[in-house]
């Protein structure tokens, strides 16, 4: 990429007026603005910034899909099978119990769901996730995750930004800060908001002290997937004429005051914005996908939440195809307050699992069949786990437990069928190969070709990194 002096390549009036006036397609305005500017004004970042030469080494993953399980999936009801809980169901815990969010700790509670082993590795899955279980051999399961915070917001900020307070750059921001986007017309970091914004709000997806360029663009289902993406003019030509006029006037400003980078790049942003007006709706339009594909993702499910999450998973694949770096999916609103089942564990977890199970399995299979899984890292994680003992109540639930939870990785650079780390026999604390959020981040960055120690940004007098001063790559789940 070579930035070219914009002023010296300004277009003639005649060129301006040859503008096609038929419709809104990106071709319509292509050539309206200086083509060299359109090169400058993209989401694509050549080379790397923020920590020398990025990638630091050849990456395995081009994109990450982060399946955020809002509220905290219960590990002992999903992937971390604990027979002892059945035996001691209803008894007082024999272990010492940490302070919890609701301080209403009851007896040990066995899982409502049966566990079975799947795949060559014999990975355990409860029957909450029958579809994902069929992908066992593509999945590396970490059963020894732990967090530092028993409250949602801190735990969410920690999971998303590597530090438990508001206002720091999100992992997606760090990744795009380092790598940019592969696509000129789409932001590098996209959040597909399926209905629920995590506690702590949109700050989970922000750029923090990094430039605003690296914040997530939040896409929502519906006619207007992105804020301000839909022109309000009645016809396309009305907006096109405005853009044309603006361009003339802006160029005359540059003529007057000379080359000013700040103004030139503002001008070029309009080119990209204009293109996004068509590229974003096109992206969000799933009607071109085959019936088989749609069905794979559960778009024909009777469960409307499954349909909506399926559409998001499909959209995630389309984003991956278009070179978007980091995609996070938030949970659908199934009416049970995310995975956060302080009460009503059975109904809540079933509704949540049913909404996401088939779409996620569909996503893994679809990526694999298209050859995309080898360059796409898929991560499934909540912000913490849940207690193996009940939270008291008529319909018991489980309270927050940062001491143990299960996270799985699949795809680029991941060794399928690996089960990594262990919790104690109740699933309460991670005890073997304990894996922190920093380790998760370090591993994720590693697979994208970024050395988490080297990627830093100077803020408030410190060179700050996503992993603070911690983090180790979890080599045990990586393909050799």
């Amino acid at each position, binding site marked *: 990429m070579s930035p070219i*002096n914009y002023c010296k390549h300004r277009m003639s009036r005649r060129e301006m007026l040859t503008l096609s006036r038929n419709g809104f397609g990106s071709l319509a305005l292509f050539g309206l603005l200086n083509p060299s500017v359109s090169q400058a004004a993209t989401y694509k970042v050549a080379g790397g910034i923020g920590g020398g030469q990025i990638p630091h080494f050849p990456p395995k993953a081009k994109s990450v899909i982060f399946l955020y399980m809002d509220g905290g999936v219960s590990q002992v009801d999903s992937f971390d099978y604990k027979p002892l809980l059945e035996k001691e169901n209803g008894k007082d815990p024999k272990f010492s119990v940490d302070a919890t969010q*609701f301080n209403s700790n009851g007896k040990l509670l066995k899982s409502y769901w049966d566990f079975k082993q799947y795949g060559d590795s014999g990975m355990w899955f409860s029957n909450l996730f029958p579809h994902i279980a069929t992908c066992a051999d593509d999945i590396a399961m970490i059963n020894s995750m732990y967090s530092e915070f028993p409250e949602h917001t801190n735990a969410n900020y920690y999971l998303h930004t590597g530090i438990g*307070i508001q206002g720091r750059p999100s992992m997606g921001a760090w990744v795009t800060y380092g790598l940019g986007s592969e696509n000129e017309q789409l932001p590098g970091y996209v959040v597909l*908001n399926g209905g629920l914004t995590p506690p702590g*709000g949109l700050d989970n997806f922000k750029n923090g002290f990094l430039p605003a360029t690296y914040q997530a663009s939040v896409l929502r289902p519906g006619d207007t997937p*992105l*804020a301000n993406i839909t022109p309000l003019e009645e016809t396309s030509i009305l907006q096109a004429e405005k853009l044309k006029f603006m361009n003339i006037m802006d160029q005359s400003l540059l003529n007057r005051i000379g080359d000013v980078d*700040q103004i030139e790049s503002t001008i070029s942003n309009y080119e990209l914005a204009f293109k996004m007006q068509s590229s974003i709706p096109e992206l969000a339009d799933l009607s071109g996908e085959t019936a088989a594909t749609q069905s794979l993702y559960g778009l024909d499910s009777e469960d409307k939440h499954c349909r909506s999450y399926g559409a998001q998973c499909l959209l995630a694949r389309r984003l991956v195809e278009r070179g978007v770096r980091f995609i996070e999916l938030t949970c659908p609103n199934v009416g049970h307050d995310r995975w956060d089942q302080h009460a009503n564990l059975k109904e809540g977890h079933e509704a949540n699992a049913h909404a996401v199970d088939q779409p996620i399995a569909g996503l893994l299979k679809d990526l694999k069949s298209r050859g995309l899984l080898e360059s796409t890292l898929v991560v499934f994680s909540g912000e913490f786990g849940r207690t193996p003992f009940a939270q008291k109540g008529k319909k018991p639930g489980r309270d927050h437990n940062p001491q143990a939870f299960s996270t799985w990785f699949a795809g680029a650079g991941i060794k399928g069928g690996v089960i990594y780390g262990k919790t104690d026999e109740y699933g309460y604390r991670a005890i073997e190969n304990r894996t922190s959020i920093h380790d998760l981040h370090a591993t994720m960055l590693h697979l994208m070709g970024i050395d988490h120690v080297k990627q830093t940004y100077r803020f408030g*007098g410190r060179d700050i990194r996503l992993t603070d001063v911690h983090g180790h790559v979890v080599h045990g789940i990586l393909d050799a």
Partner: protein
Amino acid sequence: MNRRGLTLIAIIGLIAYLAMGFWPDVDYGHDLPKTVDFNYHIRPILSQQCFVCHGNDPSSREADLRLDIEDGAKARLGHGGKAIVEGNINKSLLIERITSDDPKFMMPPPDSKKVMSPREIALLKKWIKQGAEWKEQWAFVTPQLPKVPLLNNNPSVSVAIDYFINDALEQKDLSIADQADRNTLIRRVSYILTGLPPTIEELDTYLNDESDSAYESMLDRYLASSGYGERWARHWMDLVRYGESMGHEGDFNISNAWEYRDYLIRAFNQDVPYDQFVLEHLAGDQITETRINPQDGYNESAIGTAYLFLGDGKHSPVNTREEESDKIDNMIEVTSKTFQALTVSCSRCHDHKFDPIPTADYYAMYGMFESTRLVPKPARMPVNRLSKADELMAVKSKIRSKVGDLLLTQLESTTQEDQRTAIQKYVAQIDKSQTIELDTSLQLLADFRAGDWEGWYTDGIAFGEHPAKGDFTIDKESKKLQELGSGFATSRHLALGVHGVLSSPNFTINKEYIAVRAAGQGGTVRIVIDNFQVIQAPLWGQLKANVDDPDWKTYILDVRLAKGRKAYLEFFSGSFERHVFDIQPDDYVDVQYAVAFSGEHDIKEKILAEQYHKEILTVEPRKAIEDWVRGESSMDQTKLVGALRQEWLPDVNTAQLSNEINQLSTLSTELYDSTHFIGMMEGEAIHSPVFNRGSFDDLSDENVPHRFLSVVSAGPDSFPQDGSGRLAWAESLVDPTNPLTSRVMVNRIWHHVFGKGIVETVDNFGLQGKMPTHPDLLNYLAITFIEEGWSIKGLIKQVLLSETFKQSSIASEENTETDPNNEMLHHYPVRRLEAEAIRDGILAAAGCLDRQMFGPSVPVHLTNFMTGRGRPRVSGPLDSYGRRSIYRSVRRNFIPPLMQTFDMPIPFSTFGKRNTTNVPAQSLALLNDPFIHEQAEYWAQNILSLESASLEERINTIYKRAFSREATQDEQRQAVQFLELQAAAHGSSLEQLKDSDLLWKDYCHSIFNLKEFIHLL
């Protein structure tokens, strides 16, 4: 290919070389400065490359070698030799190490991933050759007036500024740009001073003023306008992470945060001297020279302390100690960055790696904030109304005196026998069956029946100087005088509805519950654990009780979750509802005692037996009455007087007292004030231990005394150790020998005027910050600022009077070649306006700006994309009623997208310097946001309402509003052409649509989207 392209290729090439692990063989000799300066050239290298292992922090120090201090760097090392030998590079082991390629010997070591560049090595060599002169970090040395001949002539500040700028330009063969035209200047000045574009009237006034003082008069008008305070208050709000909600899960309200915003606007408009302003922030509740609002007569100073409470916070931390340490960490970070541009918070876990800031400095500040309590206070209560309290006390004293006379007369005519009967009657009334004796199962926290505060702290006037002692009060309904009683703390010591707080010394929770015997209406009893205030379910809802019953009751606070924690009890009139404080005219709280207990206990039902004044029968009545009249009676004496009065004067509403009763009745209503803010009060001094590795549950044995930052030798000789020490800390800030305070502030002003500070890192003057581009100018301004009485307006005016400021923004090619980043200011830097200025400018152009000042914030307009917990139930209007952006609510989890898109910072820490980003979301917003379209439509209607205006006149009006100038001929032509094309696109013609707002809206909308509109030239 242009210059930028070449530079880029050069950089890429360099990086490629680096990646390949070797350096090009270049002679750096010609490139090095004539004299290598320690501060400018050497310390940055040592700091960047060496300090992590050879710096200030002993915990990570290697080989017992320090390179951050001269004594260390030039000392004889354990194994012989010296790292640095003055004048001798061959003997300097440092040079040997950094030039070695033996991985076991070389420095920095390979695993540090740091690489010393050839230029850095060359600089170090040259510096050692030149004698290795060591200098203190410039920022930690009190500025000296530069020795410049010009300054002997006592020039105006603006002339001096130009001198320093020109001098630096000349040294680099640069020249100052031509002066900008008047239209550009007024727009620049207006936006910088007020954040708004000039009105057409302001523009015309200036353009028509042909006097020599036209420019200065124009400056004066803007400096005097209300918009000035609104603009500069917003700059300050970025520093103190101003927010009106707490973020996190519930995004709960920060009660009346906007009172602080209004305080700032008033303070900047009144040009409060900066030293006073600083004192008010840290100790506005303690300073003796308080500032009275000239219009409404209330005490402004205390409101400054509200800044401390504006951070984020969560509602149910499982560990309150951890939450406290995070909140105080944020206070330390914000306070040290804002006032000193130092990153003290880096010393939380270990001594600062780069700056001379030991961990003990951090924990000295920690103790200061840990000793500070945050309480509701009246915000805008006129001081002269407070003087009514004295009048009221005088009336009460008079009543006591008259009642005393009556009692004394009666005493004369009563036999001792009868007196004794009266007293015994009273004693007999006390029902002992319902009392319970204090024993080891109870921990007494306070028993106000003893008649004094027992070391408790009061804030505000409500609780007076001691618990109630048989005073009288007016019953609101009957307007009759009645006895208030005695032997309890009461917030109606003066009257109902009076602001005030009574809070206990710190104690450790070692029981399960706390029982508080209280009565009242709209009163609050609560316990503050580890300074945690966001009291509510699920975990901490039991820490407070609303007292809403005039009869005595025992309120039980459940502190089982807080065992072992530090706590204090707090009583106040008024209450918090969803974290918003409210006080009504009849609110009060009375408290007799508070005890802690465990498990089931009779104290829930029974009353604690009085531990005192059992000697009532032995009290001498005459003296008791006399002492009581003087307000000096002991509790036994008070009780005795009460008993006699009950017997002899059951109704005090006698004709003799009717005057006083009327006076009291009137005065009682004058002390109520509905306004409030959350500000600081003093509590018990806490000297914090150092937290080992920053961990709140791993404490060192020794406690750190309160003190100022050790690198700065300013402030009082002996730092007070009682209380929080905030006042002394603040005095150390504004001590003229403090090397940072003045420099930091003048640099912030410079930053806002030129878009870049003399020190670019405005929030970091430490070793990792940038060096000043014009050190002499910075020192000169810092000294002048203090000499001129710390006047912010005064300094801004001088800067704006300078030729430096008045330069055009057009750079000459020669200058740009030499100084592409305009470090030396050879032209005025073009920059994008801030988010608020863009929005306010749009409203102003459209004629929709409502200049109403102050008051509660306008609720944020919610879009479908603004989701999440704590989402306000009601969305504000799209245009926020046309109010300036500063009056819009700053809810942490719901910051208006337009503001965030244009880089308004998320308020989590100090942001002295905003980012300026370019993202398509900005273009999309200006193109497609309904607010922008709506304003374009209003503007069009506004333009069409101008009577009999020609096309040309309309276009000129639009240009004047948007760009403070008339359209050029070409612009006129382009405008008409656009209108024609657009009319055609509407399927019509310009002739047909020339008075249609449909068409003009399109034009106005395009104007909003022109780059000239959102940039300052």
